[in-house]
């Protein structure tokens, strides 16, 4: 019989055998590799980036290897790991006379009746249970995996797409060149705005399947309309290219959208583009929450931005592109022509 009281007394004895040195090495390695060519950073959901969180479980040391199968079967039946199924049940130990550690159950389960009735036969088979910190969530990236196994062995199924995004080699050189060219155009528009004493922000919408520019714009929020942010204008020019549009822009605005793409078959022609479906947006500065949500509504596929902004909604304050509960998500990459984009705000007093 395991003694429940003893266990609770030991609950404060938390083993913290993990160290963060491997974490640092990996980071440094990445930074070195990309020093020559700063790569586009994917703005991923926090679940991929968070450090390993731990939870306490009860662990016993198995005194004799030959009892492993029996104990394992017993524990698996009586205490399925449920939310902790990423954990391996057994951890090999280097100590000679205590070769194996086995997870009994989580702390919550230990409070229940079942735990008190635990009977694994001979008492001498197991040590007194003690508390150990183990990773709470399954690792989603190699970095999280390497950190997690410092605590306890876990299983890891690497997401190839996420791994590729984090590798820094997700895009080919050709693609990166094309992206830079489009961002350069956005920078030009931002410079134009700056020359007109407007907020120095430029935006370009591109159809990546044809490399065609659908719309380009610069910010005009300090003009007649506080909502005329570069992204909002660009979205409206995209709508105009599809025969719609909500705003009238003065001719003096150096704004541009492709000619109408209306079909002779009428509005129900399925070959016509639908909002920003499949399109990329290049914008010199991280969008605000209004613009980020406008891009959700518009079904944009990818957003590339240069500089981060204080209250930005695509990485800084929020990650609206991966917000749970919304009906559309998009990919976001930051740091494209970051230096050029940062430079736009030099000597600009009203940076928001």
């Amino acid at each position, binding site marked *: 019989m395991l003694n429940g009281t003893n266990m609770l007394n030991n609950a404060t004895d938390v083993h913290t055998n993990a160290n963060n040195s491997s974490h640092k090495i990996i980071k440094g390695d990445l930074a070195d590799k990309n020093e020559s060519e700063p790569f586009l950073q994917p703005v991923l959901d926090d679940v991929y980036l968070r450090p390993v969180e731990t939870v306490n479980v009860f662990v016993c040391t198995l005194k004799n290897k030959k009892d492993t199968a029996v104990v394992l079967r017993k524990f698996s039946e009586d205490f399925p790991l449920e939310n902790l199924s990423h954990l391996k049940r057994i951890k090999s130990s280097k100590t000679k006379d205590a070769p194996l550690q086995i997870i009994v159950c989580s702390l919550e389960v230990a409070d229940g009746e079942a735990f008190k009735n635990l009977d694994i036969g001979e008492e001498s088979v197991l040590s007194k249970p003690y508390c150990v910190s183990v990773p709470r969530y399954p690792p989603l990236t190699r970095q999280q995996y390497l950190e997690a196994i410092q605590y306890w062995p876990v299983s890891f199924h690497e997401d190839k797409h996420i791994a590729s995004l984090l590798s820094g080699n997700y895009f080919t050189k050709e693609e990166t060149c094309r992206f830079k060219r489009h961002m350069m155009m956005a920078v030009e528009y931002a410079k134009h705005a700056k020359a007109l004493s407007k907020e120095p922000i430029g935006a370009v919408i591109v159809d990546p399947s044809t490399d065609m520019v659908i719309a380009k714009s610069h910010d005009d929020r300090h003009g007649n309309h506080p909502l005329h942010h570069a992204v909002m204008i660009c979205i409206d020019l995209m*709508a105009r290219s599809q025969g*719609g549009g*909500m705003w009238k822009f003065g001719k003096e605005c150096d704004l541009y959208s492709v000619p109408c793409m209306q079909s002779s078959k009428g509005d129900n022609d*399925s070959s016509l583009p*639908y909002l920003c479906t499949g399109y990329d947006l290049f914008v010199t500065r991280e969008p*605000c*929450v*209004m613009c980020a949500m406008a891009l959700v*509504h518009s079904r944009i596929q990818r957003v590339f931005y240069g500089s981060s902004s204080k209250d930005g909604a695509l990485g800084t304050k929020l990650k609206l592109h991966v917000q749970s509960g919304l009906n559309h998500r998009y990919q976001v990459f930051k740091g494209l022509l970051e230096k050029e984009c940062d430079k736009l705000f030099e000597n600009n007093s009203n940076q928001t």
Partner: protein
Amino acid sequence: MEAVHHHWMEETFLLAEEALKLGEVPVGCAFVYKDQIIATGKNEVNETKNACRHAEIVAIDKVLNWCDERGDKSEDVFRESALYVTVEPCIMCAGALRQIGVSLVVYGCKNDRFGGCGSIISVHQAELPTLGQSFHCIGGVMTDRAVQLLKDFYKGENPNCPESKRKIKSE
């Protein structure tokens, strides 16, 4: 106070019903300034092929025009205005409303899909100083009527959505 809200909300429902007739998501709104409606809006997304053409954005455009014609400063007018809208403003509109500096928003039902005043996130109160002042919200005014309108709409289909993207209904 409640009765006043109902009075203005009645007006917004007429706009929402109009939108429904036109095949748009049935949302209507009105800006009330010094005890009178100065601008109204209804959803015009399909008409403009711009998914940002929500009732609130339409009405904001109209207030700006109204101020322009009278030579009033729009910041001053928005600050003293209340927005009445049949459905909780979405995240985008909540962001827009902070930027124009409105101080009070009264709405009918919650917006479970896109709500920016508590349902998905709380843009109206979030710590986003560069976006402008936070604003106060009163929700749940004539909820049932707003919900019924949305139900009527979602029974039908979005006529602007391409065939391939339409959901196959199991019913």
